[in-house]
């Protein structure tokens, strides 16, 4: 996996040995996203308002709105409820490459969180995420 971090943008690039349609479905179909990420009502329709909530309710709830959903580009806002109205953007782009799919994920606007963290939310916020990291692996087992 390649990682690039410039200012407040995180970019990840990963090649997966799976056909592009399958990868697209895995990131847009709510039943599938619920399996590898956290349960969600997600729909790949522009304007759709989604939420992400782990079953144990240990993570912070994430909500957002779909901005673009054309194969193979998916863009949505990402609002961590613990940080009130701070809006960041997550963008996925898929490309067919070497008999598989290259997935590019970009998360934009993360430094905006600094203001909220500064405002004393650091602890509950980050400890919530630490637990979430652990949960992501566990869902698969």
């Amino acid at each position, binding site marked *: *996996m390649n*990682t690039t*971090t410039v*200012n*407040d943008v*995180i970019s*990840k690039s*990963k090649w*997966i*040995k*799976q056909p592009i349609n*399958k*990868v697209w479905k*895995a*990131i847009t179909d709510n039943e*599938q996203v619920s*399996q*590898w*990420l956290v349960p969600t009502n997600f729909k790949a329709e522009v304007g759709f308002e989604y939420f992400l909530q782990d079953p144990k309710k240990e993570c912070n709830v994430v909500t957002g709105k779909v901005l673009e959903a054309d194969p193979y580009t998916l863009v949505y806002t990402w609002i961590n409820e613990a940080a009130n109205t701070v809006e960041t953007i997550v963008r996925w782009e898929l490309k067919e490459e070497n008999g598989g799919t290259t*997935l590019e*994920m970009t*998360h934009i606007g*993360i*430094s*905006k*969180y*600094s*203001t*909220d*963290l*500064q*405002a*004393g939310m*650091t602890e509950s916020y*980050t400890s919530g*995420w*630490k637990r*979430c*990291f652990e949960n*992501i*692996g566990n*869902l*698969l087992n």
Partner: protein
Amino acid sequence: MSQKTDQIFRALADPTRREIFRLLVIGSTLSITQLSAHFDISRQGISKHLKFLMDAEMVKMEKKGRESICYAEAKSLQIVKEWLSYYDKYWDNSLNALEDYLNLSSQ
């Protein structure tokens, strides 16, 4: 709520102040003139917002010749760094989970 926390919340309630703070966090030091270039409001308006941010101890200002330069408190920078590393790990884990999920489900 302590008086300082309250002050920080009020400092952040305004979108211009949030943006000033963000610019200083990502751009290190900027003069008032440089900051003003990002906004449609007067230099005086920017100074007022800066004073609010300084009172909340989120921004510091130093005289450099004829210009005043501003920077975000070092603590704020550390917070951004930590935050990026959390999200960095979060997406690493998520993408690995996605790959595992796809590989398992195609077996």
